[in-house]
């Protein structure tokens, strides 16, 4: 139910959703963007609130869905010494938050040839010796808007456990907030990316059934079937689709087989 057809909600409780147009009666709150005060609708995300206030994102905005890592925001709250981090497209504004966008944070990325690399921890240690400047202060973890246990994956890399580091860093969106807060000046997110590349290429088990299927496709096994489909008329295709055999929704895995097995 959108707020337009909501007759019962009182005007003061009306949610404005993520619209940048303020409906009548919607509450606004003060936020401070780079030190300047703006009154913005209370239910907007930081990104929408900034756009409402007149900012235009040329950089520092990407997917607007919380996964591209382009819009990290650093903010404080009134009367609280702590730093907070969030993605502008995901974090809802709070009264009296003091914020700034950090669309990019410089961090050196080592050069390597993933095809020629030796897939061991020592390779990562040699490419990123600053790993050993980590003092386990945990500022990286505290700065991560994705809740990644950054210190734990850095520790895993130092301990030589690349698989663990790849799994722990899986949600990283490369926003760079970890590096922005690091006492040891580590480029954590670049190190993690290298580790995931090594893991994906050399360590993670290959899916045997996938390789078999790729080989089948490359051998031309399915070419004739595709040709036949492409030559069908619209009506023939529709009929084929409607009459297709279909696995029952609740069939226990591995129990159902189609009667026509010529394509398996």
């Amino acid at each position, binding site marked *: 139910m959108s707020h337009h057809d909501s007759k019962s909600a009182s005007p003061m409780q009306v949610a404005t959703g993520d619209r940048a147009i303020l409906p009548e009666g919607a509450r606004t709150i003060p936020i401070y963007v780079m030190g300047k005060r703006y009154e913005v609708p209370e239910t907007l995300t930081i990104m929408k609130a900034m756009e409402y206030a007149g900012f235009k994102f040329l950089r520092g905005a990407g997917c607007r869905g919380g996964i591209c890592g382009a819009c990290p925001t650093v903010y404080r709250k009134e009367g609280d010494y702590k730093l907070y981090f969030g993605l502008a497209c995901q974090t809802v504004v709070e009264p009296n938050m003091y914020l700034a966008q950090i669309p990019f944070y410089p961090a050196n990325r080592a050069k390597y040839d993933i095809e020629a690399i030796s897939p061991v921890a*020592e390779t990562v240690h040699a490419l990123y010796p600053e790993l050993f400047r980590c*003092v*386990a202060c*945990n500022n990286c973890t505290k700065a991560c808007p994705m809740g990644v246990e950054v210190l734990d994956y*850095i*520790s895993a890399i*130092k*301990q*030589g456990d690349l698989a663990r580091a790849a799994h722990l860093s899986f949600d990283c969106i490369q926003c760079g907030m970890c590096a922005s807060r690091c006492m040891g000046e580590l480029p954590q997110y670049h190190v993690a990316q290298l580790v995931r590349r090594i893991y994906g290429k050399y360590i993670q088990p290959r899916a045997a059934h996938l390789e078999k299927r790729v080989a089948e496709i490359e051998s031309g096994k399915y070419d004739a079937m595709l040709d036949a489909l492409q030559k069908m008329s619209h009506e023939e295709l529709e009929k084929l689709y409607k009459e297709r055999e279909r696995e029952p929704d609740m069939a226990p895995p591995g129990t159902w087989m189609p009667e026509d097995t010529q394509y398996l």
Partner: protein
Amino acid sequence: MKISYYPGCTLKTKARNLEDAAVASMAALGVDFQELERWNCCGAVHSLADDDLIHHVAPVRDLVRAMDQGSDKVVTLCSMCYNTLARANLLMRQDEVKRKTINDFMSEEKDYHGEVEVLHFLNFLRDHVGFDKVRERVKVPLNGLKVATYYGCTLVRPGNVAIEPPADRKLMAEFLEAIWASPVDFADATTCCGSYQVLANPDAALDVAARILESATRAGAEAVVLSCPLCEYSLARKQDELLQKNKISKDVPVFYFTQLLAAALGLGSEACRFDLSPRCSVELLKSKNYPIDAAVVGV
């Protein structure tokens, strides 16, 4: 009471021989020896600067992790990790002001007051497993193999975290006696191996390593036993260079104490990880009837 094992980064990379032999030995003895699930670097070196608290955060965080995982005691194998963890623990127990500063800084963790006890594996063997039990379970008595007990610095310095009263020098000897080896005390048992100078002043590091090895040889030792990856680097991995430069007269087999334990318990050379110890001498053990190719008991 729950005792957990804290490995340390080096044992997972360059010193797997120190770790694997210990883990296999504990399995053979039927002793519960579970690694902490979550841990970070121990900090490696205890900072002595009075106003430098940030370098205590790493070891304190490990102790908090141990507490979070329900452990009363953590056992270390590496001398450096032992030293750093034990000293940070002492600081958190004794220095109220620094404790508060560190706890405040680590506000995302539970406050820590030194609840966990830090043990070195040798103390764990003596006090929680028992040297008698070890002695009973020995399958390959080391037939009086003469072994120099090399402590290095960090097991015995400073005195308030020493694994035994520093003047005693009994613990390693008692351990070796439990596996039927003959401990050899020698003048340089607690001389620093030189690792702190290995980058800034490599010749000084070589000289002190040579002095330690020659001193052990003169005392009649057939091998040196130690518990620190840095000491192993200085005393074992640098031996080729020491021989080349005529700094030592003969090569000296070097073992981690856990490798001798595993060997005495009859574990195969795979469990003892002799493959990772360039200066250990399997031939020497063979002369004491250690079976090289087959394990006496399964791993």
